[in-house]
């Protein structure tokens, strides 16, 4: 931040003054200004390689042969492209089915999270009812206790409901989203009350105001939260891993651990093809909607 401000200030001065003071400023620039700027870009390029490079490597290796994946020295591009790695993947395990499962679970969990937290967020922000603050405090406390603490009895509960190895078992326990309730409560609290008050004076009931005024106004926030929770639901592993043990209900992530145990350390090209299948959809969603994702994540703060 500080570096860029300096640069902005430096850039702002010459056009304001005459052309004469601009010259010495430019002469000084290479040493004093360019160095921090170059240094910054150098650090950030290295960082980009460390943080994003592994994904590029993953895609490249997924097209190599098993031997080439482990060749010393390593090749950057595959000497021979092997797209059949991907078809082999679908022969080893029903990845098509895993994909369908992942999409079904992620989409329905997200829809449930958006609807329930939108409703609760609105109620906590705008409606007065007895016990509201107490209920909200309970949610607040629950946010601090990770789900991983309660999983042993939860699985027994799902088992007694007959929900192990089922879509409802994978989806319904995921639906309540405390984070979503917070985000929407925050959003509606910061919203001016005039429009809703006017509608109330005109005799519009709660549901009508909710549907015709509040939900349309919250559309950008709904979009951000939906994208973020889709990504989190797609990536969810631990809960799915313990709630399911039949292959027909595996998601892509569980399928990957199956692949890891079958192909082990020898066929890294296949493992990378599997990882590519799991990672690419999320990265595409992220690249398309990164502003919304970032907004939803940092919006949890304010």
């Amino acid at each position, binding site marked *: 931040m500080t570096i860029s401000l300096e640069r902005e200030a430096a850039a702002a001065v010459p056009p304001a003054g005459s052309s004469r003071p601009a010259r010495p400023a430019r002469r000084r620039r290479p040493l004093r200004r360019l160095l921090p700027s170059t240094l*910054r870009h150098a650090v950030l390029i290295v*960082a980009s390689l460390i*943080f994003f490079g592994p994904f590029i490597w993953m895609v490249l290796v997924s097209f190599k042969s098993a031997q080439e994946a482990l060749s010393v020295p390593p090749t950057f591009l595959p000497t021979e492209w092997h797209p059949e790695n991907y078809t082999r993947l679908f022969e080893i395990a029903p990845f098509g089915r895993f994909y369908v499962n992942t999409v079904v679970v992620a989409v329905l969990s997200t829809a449930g999270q958006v609807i*329930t937290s939108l409703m609760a967020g609105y109620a906590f922000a705008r*409606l007065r009812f007895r016990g509201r603050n107490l209920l909200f405090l309970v949610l607040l406390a629950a946010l601090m206790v990770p789900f991983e603490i309660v999983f*042993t009895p939860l699985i027994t509960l799902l088992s007694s409901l007959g929900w192990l190895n089922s879509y409802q078992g994978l989806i319904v326990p995921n639906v309540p989203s405390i984070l979503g309730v917070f985000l929407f409560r925050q959003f509606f609290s910061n919203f001016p009350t005039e429009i809703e008050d006017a509608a109330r004076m005109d005799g519009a009931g709660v549901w009508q105001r909710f549907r015709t005024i509040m939900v349309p106004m919250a559309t950008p926030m709904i979009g951000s939260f939906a994208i973020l929770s889709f990504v989190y639901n797609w990536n969810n592993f631990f809960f799915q891993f313990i709630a399911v043990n039949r292959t027909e209900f595996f998601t892509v992530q569980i399928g990957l651990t199956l692949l890891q145990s079958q192909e082990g350390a020898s066929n890294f090209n296949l493992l990378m093809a599997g990882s590519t299948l799991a*990672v690419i959809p999320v990265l595409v969603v992220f690249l398309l909607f990164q502003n919304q994702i970032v907004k939803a994540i*940092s919006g949890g703060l304010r």
Partner: protein
Amino acid sequence: MTALASARLPESYRRRTMHEKEGRAGYALVAPTTILLSVFYLYPLLQTVVYSFTDWNPGAPGTTSFVGLDNFAGLFAPTSGFLSALRNTAIIAIVVVPGSMAVGLLFAAMLDGPFRGRSFYRTMIFAPHIAPTVGSALIFSYLLTPLGGLVNTALEPFGVNPISFLTTEPWAIVAVIVFIVWQQTGYTMIIFSAALSTIPPSYHEAAKLDGAGVVRRFLSISLPLVAPTSGFLVITGLISTLQVFTQVYVLTGGGPLGSTKTAIYWIYEQGFQFFNGGAATAASVVLLLIGITVTAVQLKFLSRRDTVEML
């Protein structure tokens, strides 16, 4: 006067029924979240606490009986392995939380303000946080493989013999820690970026006029002003490292010799492999108490205003 009173009566009556209606609608709107949370979260939480005092077996639930504090005593017996799992979790948390915060803050500071390539760099650094853990962990296990892995190949010219990072001590836990920092840095960066962008530029300009350099301005202006954000990140970071499972499951399977086994991993083994539900739930209760303590201590350090802002 009487006219006024009679005009007011229906009005206040109307308003009261309206409030009652709104109250009922309020309950209806919060019901789905509340009911689902009670069934799938609070009820199992209650069961966790109750079962921790019993010899509950998830595989044969009929025979459960009360055993007092035996499970807790068992946890702290040296043979249980729980203490070493707790120690591993603590090591991961103690390195990962400040590590990812320091790197994230550095990047956030470097990415603050407009310059060419800014959003590109942000995207690249943030990507690991959004990618599915199993996929990323498989990439790391490939990069770290002893023969033909990129890391060992890169170390070879320096005369380093191939290292089995994921199956030797202490490298395995180092690899797990590096991986989690790699995943978390994008998150801390985004949160710090949001905090830095709220600092008015005039603060920095004023300090610059007084002759303060880049480092001095960072330490005296940016750092104190992101302190509440750091408090928030410490809490969320500690709570998320208490839950570490997937990273370890894929990278090391808890090995070698349990050196990367985390608390949740230990609970998973007890509950699902050894059907020792009493020990699993007792360990969950201990983790729960640790989480509550950590949060309470943190909230005590944060001022009241910051806490409200945080939520």
